């Protein structure tokens, strides 16, 4: 057992990260700045909008897609958040979640399509997804900080790693579940690759892909407290501060706000996937 010398994975990792940092550090910084600008302007927009308007928008969305009960819940829940002075933090968190989820969709759906179409891509992507989902978040939190500094950008990146796998997995699953006969139908009429994808496969895979996006949103919300440790402001930050100061009541309030946000977003996006007409 001991004949083979210790394999220095730790050193290799450090060297690798140092190398990346030295070689690409400035690029990461530029990327980080641009992304921060985007996220911050979204945050500013959400905070600038009157709370009443946002509550109405959510209530209408909930009413249209998930029914009266969810709409009532959204109104009461969001009012409660406003009432306990957590509105701004909630908007910061919402902006972060939206940013992360949009990025997850932009990157995840095409990768899911690729994995469904090319077995080679599937073989490469799948183990990486296993890695992303099981590696403890704290392990990649640190390198995220090294590359992107403190603040909201590394938080979004860490959220991305944690929340993207279900989007990819369920996109692939959805495409593979399209009935063989409908694939044959597409081919038998001479459809091109993109006609197949946009007219047949993606519409049929939509409920499954939406389930993936729903999971992505929920996982993003569950990351907000961890993200707060590297400087992301918002509800997570409030929970984290309350924990450090042993303010159980304040912590509970911020936690409750996360739950309200999660339930409303969950119910609305769940119903996107259900109705096929």
């Amino acid at each position, binding site marked *: 057992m001991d004949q083979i010398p210790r394999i220095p994975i730790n050193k290799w990792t450090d060297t690798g990260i140092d190398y990346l940092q030295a070689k690409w550090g400035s690029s990461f910084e530029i990327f980080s700045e641009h992304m921060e600008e985007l996220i911050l302007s979204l945050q500013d927009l959400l905070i600038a909008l009157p709370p009443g308007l946002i509550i109405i928008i959510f209530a209408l969305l909930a009413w249209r897609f998930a029914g009266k009960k969810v709409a009532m819940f959204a109104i009461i829940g969001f009012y409660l958040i406003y009432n306990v002075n957590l509105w701004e933090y909630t908007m910061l968190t919402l902006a972060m979640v939206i940013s992360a989820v949009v990025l997850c969709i932009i990157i995840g759906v095409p990768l899911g399509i690729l994995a469904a179409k090319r077995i080679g891509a599937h073989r490469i992507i799948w183990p990486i997804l296993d890695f992303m989902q099981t590696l403890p978040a704290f392990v990649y939190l640190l390198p995220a900080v090294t590359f992107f500094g403190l603040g909201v950008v590394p938080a979004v990146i860490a959220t991305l790693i944690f929340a993207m796998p279900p989007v990819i997995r369920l996109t692939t699953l959805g495409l593979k579940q399209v009935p063989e*006969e*409908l694939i044959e139908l597409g081919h*038998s009429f*001479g*459809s091109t690759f993109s006609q197949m994808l946009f*007219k047949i496969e993606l*519409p049929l895979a939509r409920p499954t892909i939406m389930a993936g996006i729903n999971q992505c949103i929920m996982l993003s919300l569950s990351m907000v407290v961890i993200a707060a440790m590297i400087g992301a402001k918002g509800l997570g930050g409030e929970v984290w501060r309350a924990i450090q100061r042993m303010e159980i009541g304040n912590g509970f309030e911020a936690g409750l706000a996360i739950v309200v946000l999660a339930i409303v977003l969950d119910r609305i996006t769940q119903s996107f996937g259900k109705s096929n*007409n």
Partner: protein
Amino acid sequence: MAKIEVKNLSKVYGNSPEKAIELMEKGKNNEEIRKRTKQVVGVRNVSFSVEDGECFVIMGLSGSGKSSLLRCLNGLNRASTGSILLDGQDISRVNTQELREIRRNKIAMIFQRFALLPHRTVRDNVVYGLEVQGIEKEKRNEKVMHYLKLVGLEAWADYYPSSLSGGMQQRVGLARALATDPDILLMDEPFSALDPLIRQEMQEELIELQKKLQKTIIFITHDLDEAIKIGDRIALMKDGEIVQLGEAEDILLSPATEYVGRFVQNVDRSKALTASAVMVKARSVVYPKDGPLVALHIMERHSMSGLFVNDRKGVYMGHITADDALRIAESKERQIDSIIRQEAPTVSPDTTLADILEIVAYTQIPVAVVDEDNILKGVLVRGSVIAGLAGERMDA
């Protein structure tokens, strides 16, 4: 030139079909090939040709290779060896772009489980082929409504497939296939997922449509009754090979192998066989110029109580009875033309036994079979009709 010409087509599933084909040429059977090479033979050295406007039925049980064969015809399956000529163009050798063009314009497919897109309305399902062709919106909507009317579904254009019955769904499939105005329709067991009554209705509608449209149809079925009803010719498949190819009556009356024989055993022969298959030659006819005594003599010799009358060219004129002949013989008339009766029913050679049975049951005398020029082709006697139903040929 034939519309579709298939020559020595084989389809082998697996990663090294060459080995399987080599064994196939040595005459090994499919099971042996599968054991030795892990390759599955779908279609085995099949050749046939289909004329323009013909309805060609491929029949066989599941696993006989009929679906594999059908899918070779539009390139969903790439043929392993052999050639498939559509209007002289070999579809097994065209490139992707050419294949796409052929599929868009020349050949359409209708599926067993309808293959309607659940997220599209009936109208948007029918429009699919036109959309893929890139035809502009106004033009394609016009076409869609035309074909929806043709299948009687114009009122359902804005419904989703899930609210339609099976028969209606398949009509949508049919309209969709027709909308691109293809020359060739590939129908993969299109009616086998339907209830028996709806199935019959759809079969009849297809026959009516085909009269109007004159498409070249390749129709797959496992139901011999359906094959006989719809097909101009039938190819019967087993283990990837065509074991018999011919018109329905050839297959029914002279099965090529024991397998075909067993297949046709349970068919409803009354719908498959026609008058021409069971009629007997009219051995004894008289001409209108003949006298009653001649007629009576013939009747006596054949111990019959009546005779058919035709003219010298063979045109059927009616029949006479022994009683009438006797009566005019006593009154010394010299010709029988005054006693020719014309009330007896006649049938055409294409009438099916099912329709004949009814006529034969209510008619006392044999029934005359006449063609479109009213030429007497033969007669139906009860014995020959019953023998036909029982599966024996009456050689008159």
